């Protein structure tokens, strides 16, 4: 009886969660279409729903956090923009100043060209960095093509999401750590501690120990645990579609590049004599053959973390694209009868993504442990 009740609770929770997934996205879409209805009727038939643009807008990074559009008005959470330009120095302002193509101190978000969607500085009005004069030259700068890209430290959507996940992880693990301090490691875990402890033990006993080795795994546990929980939490946060979550952090290739670079650096810096010997003087290979073997082994050093980077990025991005495509189907066919199909398929994909979120964190950590294990292995040839 107890189990059955729990099952229903979980089922209702899961369905509720997936409804959350679908409703906000559709809200944005129907809201976005409204103004065209009111403006002109023939305009609506001309305007084709552009699914590609919508999807890439949703999985990409942005300077402000767009919530929804109501009666043609965009409602967004402004985020700070921090840019350093060679001419005007450091500029800090809110992204709401740049909405609807507005210029601020000569900065604006490029609508086309090489830097599309990024903040650029028009070099036409560099000499006047005070409000009024900048406004006059605004019109001229449209025709001038000379734009430069300032050094951009902005707290964008993804950066904000990463701060949030870092804060969440710190909060979880500091409180868990505190309860270990209070109760000791021998007594039974309680509350949040009871949820986290099996996962930590899983990373230790199923990932680190068998792959790195009994004697050396402890040194690498902090990194493996950090990377596991960081990827997992960010994957899950990317699946929640409403405001403080839903940014595509682990589906951003820059983020996965940094994670893979950490694995590469740790692997190579902890590599022992045997590791380097296998690269530069592979045992059992004749000397002339080393001309081929050394480049191949060096490519292997780069390609292993490169595959880690692509795998995480492509898996998470593909998941987001599939769900958004399913939702877009309603607007492509312009029919309400597609909606149940879209929602059912979206629900199925959301469930699959929950699995993928944990699986990709596991695979990334497992392969990192494997590469580190290969680098620290003692020779037994």
């Amino acid at each position, binding site marked *: 009886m107890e189990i059955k009740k729990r099952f229903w609770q979980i089922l209702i929770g899961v369905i509720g969660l997936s409804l959350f997934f679908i409703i906000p996205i559709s809200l944005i879409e129907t809201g976005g279409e409204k103004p065209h209805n009111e403006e002109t009727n023939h305009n609506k038939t001309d305007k084709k729903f552009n699914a590609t643009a919508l999807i890439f807008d949703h999985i990409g990074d942005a300077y402000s956090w767009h919530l929804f559009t109501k009666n043609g008005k965009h409602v967004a959470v402004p985020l700070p923009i921090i840019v350093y330009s060679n001419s005007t120095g450091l500029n800090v302002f809110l992204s709401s100043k740049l909405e609807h193509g507005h210029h601020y101190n000569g900065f604006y978000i490029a609508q086309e060209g090489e830097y599309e969607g990024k903040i650029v500085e028009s070099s036409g009005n560099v000499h006047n960095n005070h409000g009024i004069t900048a406004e006059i030259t605004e019109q001229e700068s449209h025709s001038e093509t000379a734009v430069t890209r300032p050094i951009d430290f902005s707290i964008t959507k993804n950066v904000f999401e990463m701060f949030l996940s870092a804060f969440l992880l710190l909060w979880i693990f500091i409180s868990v750590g505190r309860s270990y301090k209070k109760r000791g490691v021998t007594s039974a875990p309680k509350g949040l501690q009871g949820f986290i402890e099996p996962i930590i033990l899983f990373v230790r006993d199923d990932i680190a120990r068998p792959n790195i080795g009994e004697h050396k795994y402890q040194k690498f546990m902090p990194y493996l645990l950090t990377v596991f929980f960081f990827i997992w939490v960010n994957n899950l946060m990317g699946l929640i579609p409403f405001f403080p979550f839903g940014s595509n952090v682990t589906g951003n290739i820059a983020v996965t590049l940094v994670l893979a670079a950490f694995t590469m650096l740790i692997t190579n810096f902890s590599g022992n004599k045997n590791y380097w010997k296998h690269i530069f003087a592979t045992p059992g290979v004749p000397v002339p053959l080393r001309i081929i073997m050394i480049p191949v082994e060096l490519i292997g050093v780069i390609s292993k973390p490169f595959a880690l980077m692509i*795998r995480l990025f492509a898996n998470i991005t593909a998941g987001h694209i599939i769900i958004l495509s399913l939702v877009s189907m309603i607007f492509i066919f312009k029919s309400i009868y597609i909606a149940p199909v879209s929602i059912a398929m979206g629900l199925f994909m959301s469930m699959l993504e929950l699995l993928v979120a944990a699986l990709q964190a596991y695979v990334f950590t497992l392969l990192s442990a494997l590469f580190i294990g290969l680098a620290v292995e003692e020779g037994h040839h």
Partner: protein
Amino acid sequence: MTGTLAAIGAGLAVIGAGIGIGRIGGQAMDAMARQPEAASKIQTAMIIAAALIEGVALFAVVVALM
């Protein structure tokens, strides 16, 4: 034209990955049925091999998308 070719390329990559992962999964099932006590080890090896194949397939898909 290029779009169509890219789509065909992505599809071919997915076929390859499907065959590969399907074979790994099938063989792992076989192995687990023969030796249930080694199931956890087989599972780990299976996931590693599947992840490697998936990595190659995703390379192809990313290249096709670009």
